[in-house]
């Protein structure tokens, strides 16, 4: 319905190639990370320049940042999710498929949050509230979408409450950790 016939065909082809889908999701995620962090990167460069350190304001420096952040995000996410699935004995959700869905949801979250954060460049005053609240609101929506997709694909009526409870606890814990500690 969204992509039309060509889109549907592409989607069907992607469903049959896990590796390529994962790489497409990674590329989209890297780009959305760049969008989401554009403001902070430029601020960091500005501070470096203030201290007399010249900064590489070139496209490949931004790309390098996106790739490194993607790498760190994915490595940590894989370790954390694998640990949670094993610890909670969630064997009914295929780990590899879930990783693709998780990274895709993260990209969606970054895209929406990054677009809203572009407002900082116009009115920096909103950055104070924005940096704390925008991330939480967009990630809460993204979290719920991810759960609905996972529920539709892998969960039955009996195990859905258990998964939702633990997903929510982990989500709230991670958000509070990022907001107050990191």
């Amino acid at each position, binding site marked *: 319905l969204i992509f039309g016939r060509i889109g549907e065909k592409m989607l069907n082809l992607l469903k049959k190639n896990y590796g390529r889908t994962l790489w497409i999701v990674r590329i989209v995620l890297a780009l959305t990370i760049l969008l989401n962090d554009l403001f902070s990167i430029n*601020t960091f460069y500005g501070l470096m320049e203030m201290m007399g350190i010249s900064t590489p304001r070139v496209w490949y420096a931004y790309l390098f940042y996106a790739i490194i952040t993607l790498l760190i995000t994915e490595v940590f996410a894989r370790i954390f999710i694998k640990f949670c699935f094993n610890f909670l004995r969630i064997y009914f959700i295929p780990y590899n498929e879930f990783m693709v869905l998780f990274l895709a949801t993260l990209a969606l979250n970054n895209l929406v949050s990054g677009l809203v954060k572009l407002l900082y460049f116009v009115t920096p005053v909103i950055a104070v509230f924005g940096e704390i609240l925008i991330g*939480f609101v967009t990630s809460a929506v993204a979290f719920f979408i991810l759960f609905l997709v996972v529920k539709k694909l892998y969960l039955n009526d009996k195990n*859905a*409450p258990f998964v939702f409870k633990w997903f929510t606890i982990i989500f709230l814990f991670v958000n509070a950790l990022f907001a107050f500690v990191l």
Partner: protein
Amino acid sequence: MKKFLLCFMLSISVLFASLCSNVAYAVQETDYSSYQTYVWLERFLNENDPVRTTGTEGEAMAADWLENEMQSMGYEVSVQEFDASLEGVSGVKEEFAKSKNIIAQKKSASNTQDTVVICAHYDNAAKMFNSVSMESGGEGALDNGSGVAVVLTVAQRLSAFEGDLPYNVTFVFFGAEEVGSGMMGSEYYVSNLTQQQKDSILLVINVDTIASGDNLYVWGEDIATPQADYFADISDGKIICPSVASVSMGFSVGYRPYYNICHMSDHMSFLTEKIPVAFFFSGNLSDGFSYVENAGKVDIQHTKNDTLEYLKQKHGIEFVNNMECVANAIYNGVVEDAEGFATAVENARDFIVSDFWLDMSNAYLIFVVLLGAFAVFAYNYHKKLKKRAVLGTAEVKNTTVFERPDEEDIFTFRS
């Protein structure tokens, strides 16, 4: 014959070209000294020590020099002495040193309390640690000899002004802007003002680092302000209001929870006390939303290149034009167009961003409320899921997103 003619023409061309360059050079030399701001900058640098970092004799000498110059213009001058931290200064054992603010005032005949403050800091970063070259060096021609020269120029013109203004004009030269956590002179000055004095300040005009840079900026707040718009208008667009500021969470420098280059000078001591400001500076905020002087990097401010000779070599007459432009804007606004200026800054206080929006604890409070709301929503949704689980089935779902491709699919995809 042809060869002779060719040689003759070439010789003539070379001679003409060298004459032209000499003429251009001579014109440039003459131009410098015909500008009041340049003369003040040259005098300030030549008649003082190149090292004016807080805690050095050079800073004390510069303070005395400014006091004498302002007195010779006919101003009543007072000196404010305070202890300044020497954090960041190289080669000193003491933690604190004395520094001075030089204050001069021209009072209005109308006996009003309303005051316009015009200020610049006179210390420099010559003996301060620099991340690149241990000691910054330089003589502070750009940071902030240029600002001092502009304020002295305005003061000199105002001293010759025979009319009366509807407000008092106070000139302040701050010490200890560069050391410690920064802006120590202005912080001390503001802390010594009574609430009535704070309320009577119409506007604080701060000039810092304006000689170099691709653009001249005037900034009043992190939102549009009438005072910044006013100065941009009267300079015929030569001075622009920065529409984009470089800010971020996590990089607080003490004044606001986010970083912004426009916060990095003495006017912030006033703005945090809800006194309206206009900050003049030069740079380029269009390159990656950050502050740079020219062509993508800072190569003068806080480096050994911060000398008059380097400014001349790099910018030619342009750096003098920058100083003249700012001096003209301030003088024309505050003195020549006093009524228009007073009207423009009348409501400037209304444009100061409320503390509510700058207080991160308010944002955290809303975050906690949202977190709670989400937890309540999640609890109710979980209850709903559990209710459904009682009557629901426990069938194992075998649905997957990805399918095993057959040979034809792989071929189609790869092509």
